[in-house]
């Protein structure tokens, strides 16, 4: 399982998260063993080791090869999910990342106890991922262009948006506005975090409002939609970008596919809610292979800031 693999990582405390160079994440990982790069894992038939099976083409790959391709299967092109640190490492100029708001932590405002105890769930996610919450934000450069960046991590309670995610996203907008620096957000989310009830829902309005203020000020905002970006995140800040990029094969939508299937009472067409489907339906600007993503974002930044020269 992906989570099993990732839980083998050292779990730095907050200060270590702040100070550990992102590039070290990749280096550090090579010293350990992995199984399969997919969320829905079938590890039992695989040796516990450096060989992994691609869920796209079912082939067995050497993890080193996969990593060199930024976790894109060299055979079938499947884009496997990345953690936030992995994403930051592949998107940003090495050593340029300076995290902000690292200390924000979720509380349990509703004392939500149906199902798992929410506060314990958060603690477990922190423990497992080594992250403070489902998004990491900060300053960086991308191909030499200054940017405020935010990267979500689906491993952290499905990167659902509660108070902290909403707050960190909002602060990223505000930082971009204050410094008149373009914002680049890489999204992945199951939607609003129901364990924070209406406080979660209102983060949609809060982040959308922050995005609107940035837009009004004429500061560029680029979104990279990755697998999966659903529900309240898609329906708020994630689709308010000036340019919307999606990674190939990502699931992107409002309602979950199972709910849609139940609603229409027939099976869904192939590719429904995929990046390619959204492109065809005019909802996003482009689908970009992860291996070209950094260059593309850098190029877009050069265009969107051209008027400032």
């Amino acid at each position: 399982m992906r989570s099993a693999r990732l839980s083998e990582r050292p779990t730095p405390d907050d200060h270590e998260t702040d100070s550990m160079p992102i590039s070290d994440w990749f280096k550090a990982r090579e010293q350990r063993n992995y199984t399969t790069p997919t969320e829905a894992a079938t590890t039992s038939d695989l040796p516990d080791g450096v060989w992994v099976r691609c869920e796209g083409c079912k082939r067995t790959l050497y993890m080193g090869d996969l990593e060199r391709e930024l976790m894109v299967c060299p055979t079938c092109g499947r884009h496997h999910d990345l953690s936030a640190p992995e994403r930051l490492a592949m998107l940003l100029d090495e050593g340029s990342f300076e995290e902000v708001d690292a200390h924000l932590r979720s509380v349990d405002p509703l004392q939500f106890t149906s199902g798992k105890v929410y506060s314990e769930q958060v603690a477990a996610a922190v423990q497992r991922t080594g992250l403070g919450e489902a998004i990491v934000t900060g300053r960086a450069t991308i191909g030499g262009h200054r940017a405020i960046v935010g990267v979500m991590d689906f491993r952290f309670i499905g990167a659902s948006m509660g108070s902290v995610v909403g707050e960190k996203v909002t602060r990223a907008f505000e930082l971009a506005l204050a410094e008149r620096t373009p914002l680049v957000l890489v999204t992945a989310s199951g939607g609003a975090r129901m364990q924070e009830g209406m406080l979660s829902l209102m983060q949609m309005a809060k982040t959308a409002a922050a995005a609107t203020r940035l837009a009004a000020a004429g500061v560029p905002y680029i979104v990279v939609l990755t697998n999966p970006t659903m529900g309240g995140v898609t329906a708020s800040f994630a689709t308010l970008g000036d340019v919307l990029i999606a990674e190939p094969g990502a699931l992107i939508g409002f309602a979950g596919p199972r709910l849609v299937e139940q609603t229409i009472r027939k099976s869904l067409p192939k590719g429904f809610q995929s990046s390619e489907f959204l492109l065809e339906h005019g909802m996003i600007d482009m689908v970009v292979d992860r291996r070209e993503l950094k260059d593309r974002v850098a190029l877009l930044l050069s265009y969107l800031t051209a008027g400032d020269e």
Partner: protein
Amino acid sequence: MEFERPLDELEDKLASLKHLDVSEQPDLAAEIAGLEAEIARLHETLYAELTPWERVQIARHPERPKTDDYLQALFTDVVEVHGDRLFGDDESVFAGFATLQGRKVAVLGHRKGKNTTENVRRNFGSPHPEGFRKAERLMHLADRFGMPIVSFLDTAGAYPGLDDEDRGQALAIADCLAALSSVRVPVVVVGIGEGGSGGALAIGFGDRLIMLENAYYSVISPEMCATILHKDARRASETSACLQLTADDLVRLGLADAVVAEPRGGAHRDPEMVFDGVRTALSAALESLSAVDRATLPDTRYERLRRIGEVAGG
């Protein structure tokens, strides 16, 4: 409603007793009197402290006053505008202009039907992207011409259909949020029934939030929450308590500004009382906002949103 079933049974029994001939059954009068007393007692306890799940059921009651009823009861000179100017006109969303006690406002509202035909046309109050885009258009009109916005919430949620995804349900909602956050006119929201997630929020935040006593507003439907957490929609009673979705919860969370009292058993038992309450609360809200410099409203609204959420370590 389900929780009223014991009461319904007693009332049925009472009705059948009353059909009988008293002269033939001497004990009948006493039996009727006893039953009536029992009904009164049950009435007292049943509605004394409603659970969140019971309130959700009241909020969904088919006879509960709807947006159209408020339009008729509270407003004059109602003019509806139609269409998104892009694809279609979604009847599940009302958009238009209306006059409230001499005050000209732009009105939005989710629109459930009174019967099946109407409900089918209105998609049971669950908007398509066109509905949100129509609402967005009205927001811009209201903004341009300085009309306060009054919005009535009553939806189970945005419609989770195939075509809705095709036509950008998420983007339509996001665009509404962006527009509503930036209009330079007062925005007063009234939760009159269901407040289902993003489909409610798209027209459901502003400078004031008034909630009817039994209206709810939730990040997710209690049933879906129960399905996700327990794979059992029947545990909705439990999740509806956890989600803190009632009017009182919203006040406590700092999200709602006022609660309008409902008659015992719900608004449908005495709509006029609720209309009066909403009229008063709405007028007060609009009045207090009319004193504010309109140019400052987006910033004030942003500050209001900005405070929402509980975090540690910030």
